[in-house]
């Protein structure tokens, strides 16, 4: 594996240089929020952040995406696909938990049975550069409980680790190696590796929040009707904040928008928290209350995804914990389930 060392203060420069050659997504400070956005070569990436407000999943799975266009012509309807349209791009500076989420999303969108052309095209054309978490994390971080680690490279093509004065850049995949030219030519030595290992161990230790994520699967298997589900949704507002913030939530809705003879078919995020999510044309709603919706969210993350893909659909970023307007804490929910 190719490894190089880069000076800390050159990082923004590297991102900007790349932005001159291709599309670069990087953390940007906007008022009180740090968000992932595309930057130009004169952009101001902001790397001194704990984690971005929103999850970077929108790079591959945008909030709203045109699937196809159609026009009514005298000869009938004419269609044109919007699939396979993706720019060469770099996602620069995501945290390992978020990089991990891409690996989880791949299991769904890029599987043997079904390949989502829109997602796959973007994923293939995008190089993910992760930045390890070496600073004290948020109190709500719990990546280590869900198969992640603060200095982990799952889902990333390049991993950058702050090892003091320098960043250790590890080119994990061949896609990553193709961008090596941007990272100077200072080869990393064994000392850097050792330093990284030390930092990684410390960082792992610093994640104090732990949940019995693996333990709840067999419990969930047999407790669909447990009265426990009546207890968690009481204060839930049925807003979609947790799901919109979540790096692994991936439910979507498809709608057509038509004006005159022209129309487009859109895919946009949806949320299992919304009452309309499962509402049927007849007016019947199989998940009539927030109880069923909350059960669905918990089941999906910790049981169904495990059933289907042998992985928990949670990366422990803690965004849902921080953003929930009524302080519902998924960690507490999992904890409680484990005691059933």
């Amino acid at each position, binding site marked *: 594996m190719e490894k190089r060392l880069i000076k800390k203060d050159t990082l923004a420069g590297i991102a900007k240089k790349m932005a001159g050659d291709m599309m670069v997504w990087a953390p940007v400070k*906007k008022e009180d929020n740090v968000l992932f956005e595309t930057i130009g070569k004169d952009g101001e990436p902001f790397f001194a952040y704990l984690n971005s*407000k929103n999850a970077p999943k929108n790079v591959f799975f945008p909030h*709203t995406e045109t699937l196809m266009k159609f026009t009514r012509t005298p000869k009938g309807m004419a269609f044109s696909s919007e699939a396979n349209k993706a720019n060469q791009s770099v996602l620069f500076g995501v945290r390992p938990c978020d990089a991990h989420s891409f690996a989880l999303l791949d299991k769904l969108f890029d599987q043997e049975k079904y390949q989502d052309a829109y997602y796959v095209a973007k994923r293939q054309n995008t190089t993910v550069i992760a930045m390890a978490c070496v600073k004290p994390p948020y*109190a709500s971080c719990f990546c280590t409980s869900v198969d992640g680690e603060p200095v982990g490279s799952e889902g990333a093509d390049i991993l950058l680790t702050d090892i003091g004065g320098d960043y250790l850049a590890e080119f994990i995949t061949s896609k990553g190696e193709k961008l090596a030219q941007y990272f100077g030519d200072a080869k990393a030595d064994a000392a850097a590796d050792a330093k990284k290992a030390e930092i990684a161990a410390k960082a792992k230790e610093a994640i104090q929040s732990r949940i019995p994520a693996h333990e709840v699967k067999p419990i969930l298997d047999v407790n669909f009707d447990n009265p426990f589900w009546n207890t968690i949704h009481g204060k839930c507002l049925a*807003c979609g904040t947790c799901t919109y913030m979540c790096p692994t939530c991936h439910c979507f809705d498809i709608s057509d*928008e038509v004006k005159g003879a022209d129309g487009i078919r*859109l895919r946009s995020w949806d949320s299992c928290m919304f009452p309309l999510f499962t509402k049927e044309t007849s007016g019947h709603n199989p998940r009539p209350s927030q109880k069923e919706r909350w059960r669905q969210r918990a089941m999906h993350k910790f049981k169904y995804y495990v059933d289907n893909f042998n992985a928990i659909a949670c990366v422990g970023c803690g965004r849902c914990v921080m953003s929930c*307007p009524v302080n519902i804490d998924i960690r507490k929910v999992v904890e409680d389930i484990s005691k059933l």
Partner: protein
Amino acid sequence: MHDLITAHKNSQKRVKPEDRKKKVIGVVARGCTTRSLIIHLQERQYERDEVCIIGVPCDGYVDGKGLKVKIGGADIVEGSIDGGQIKMKTSDGDKTVALKDVLADSCLTCRFNNPIISDIMIGSPAPAMNPDAEYNDVKEFEAKTMEERWAYFTKEMEKCMRCNACRQACPSCYCPTCFVEQSQPQWVGIGEDKSDTQVFQFMRLYHMVGRCVDCGSCVSVCPMGVDLRKFLKKIDKDCWEMFGNRAGSGMEDMPPLGKYDEHHDKQDFIYNP
């Protein structure tokens, strides 16, 4: 506040008319909560004798996002209120902040921090806040140019990710089917198109004419920190200046958009060629 309406509706659902019983729900209500209750009563969501209002005076509410900024973005692990101070254990060490510095904007200029209606009152009346300043922000914004105002509106709306938290938290947003979710016709696209988001927010805000009680819920729940109050206060100001109505400030009022006053309503919006 939605729980009240939901509880009321559920208690009446699938019950034979003769078996319907009034179900009295106790509500611990601050001033702004009582305003919401009044709006619900005006809008006939339940009857007055179906709620027992336990009024509590209110000294204000802490603005969580403001607090976080105040302590430099550190992660708050634990906190407690002691006198006029908030004491916190944070990821950046122990911090103390004066309560009055981190009260929500809506609380600082609150006009109704004591309950308007109640069945039982608890505590002694809270001291007045600073209602005279309530429209300062709006006046300042009104003085800006059209393009400056549009720029601000678009910038704020760009933050919105359509999670609907504002709507879900709003005590006046209780429509069984929100206009956003209506089809046939579909009023607004569900995607992230700029105009759709703007129209969604604009219409939700506009539906607050005579109905926003300035409780600050929408602002406090917004994960992206959209400055909704800047716009809501304008609606409140217009409603007061044009129709002499303050949302939910009296049981005897009618919803201001459900009537008009031939003699006092301004006519200047009417076009005469």
